[in-house]
């Protein structure tokens, strides 16, 4: 995004975010974890959604955050080393102390 556009956007938001019941991006940041775990209380969920509706940078931010979570979760089912790739001396060392 071009710097001038960004500055203008922030000037507008700076006014908007001072309106009653409106939270700013920084407060949104603190809500994200709870929001995604569905633990955000109702009284905070509404302002969160209102902010998202108004703020493109937070929408993009949240979407990227979710993409990151999905990419991380994709690593959860790859956690194995085939037995033939495990060094045999390691297995021997683990089993040795119990065979006097």
């Amino acid at each position, binding site marked *: *995004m071009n*710097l001038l556009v*960004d500055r203008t*956007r*922030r000037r507008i*938001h*700076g006014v908007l*975010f*001072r309106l009653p019941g409106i939270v*700013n*991006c*920084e*407060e949104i*940041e603190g809500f*994200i*974890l709870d929001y995604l775990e569905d633990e955000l209380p109702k009284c905070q969920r509404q302002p969160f959604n209102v902010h998202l509706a108004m*703020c493109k*940078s*937070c929408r993009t*931010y949240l979407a*990227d*955050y979710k*993409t*990151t*979570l*999905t*990419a*991380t*979760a*994709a*690593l*959860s089912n*790859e*956690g*194995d*080393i*085939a*037995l033939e*790739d*495990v*060094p045999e001396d*390691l*297995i021997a*060392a*683990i*089993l040795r*102390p*119990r*065979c006097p």
Partner: protein
Amino acid sequence: MKGQPPTDQSDKQAAQEEEGFDRLVRDNIGWMLFLAARILNDGTKAEDAVQNAFSNIHKGLENFENRANLKTWMHRIVVNEALMLLRKDRQLKELPIDDSYPLFDQNGCRVVDQAVTWETAEMNLTAQQTREIVRDEIAKLPDDLRIVLILRDIEGVSTAEVGKLLELNEPTVRVRLHRARVALKKRLEPLIVRGEL
């Protein structure tokens, strides 16, 4: 055959137990090594952690009754052993500064990052390639953030349980988890922007 003493019941039982343990080692060593290496970022140290873990497992197995949760129990043991080695190791290392946290202006308005750059111009990565990049980027995170992310978002350990393992309270775990995700997001941004993720 003469001369060979008859195997008594306890010997036989002991032999059976050893056979069972041998099986347990071979059935589980693969994922345990992988997990320890992920935590330690080091294959050799992972072997040490797994060896220590199996020593504890062997000791504890006799009194372990909840067979249905055997794998969970073993998971915690290997995580603990890996963390112990990590802590030992880390005393020598300085914690890197995490500069990836988002910026806000005086109104609390998000300051959007300018132009993210990416060294390679390669496009259309395979699923395997993107997984490797994600894995590498996670490995580069500062340990304090990396471990929480691995345990929570990859290993699926609950926040409360992560807190116990790391001796941290839950709010701290949550703060670190969020920071870890944000730091990783920033590192993956070039891929995200190009729709590779």
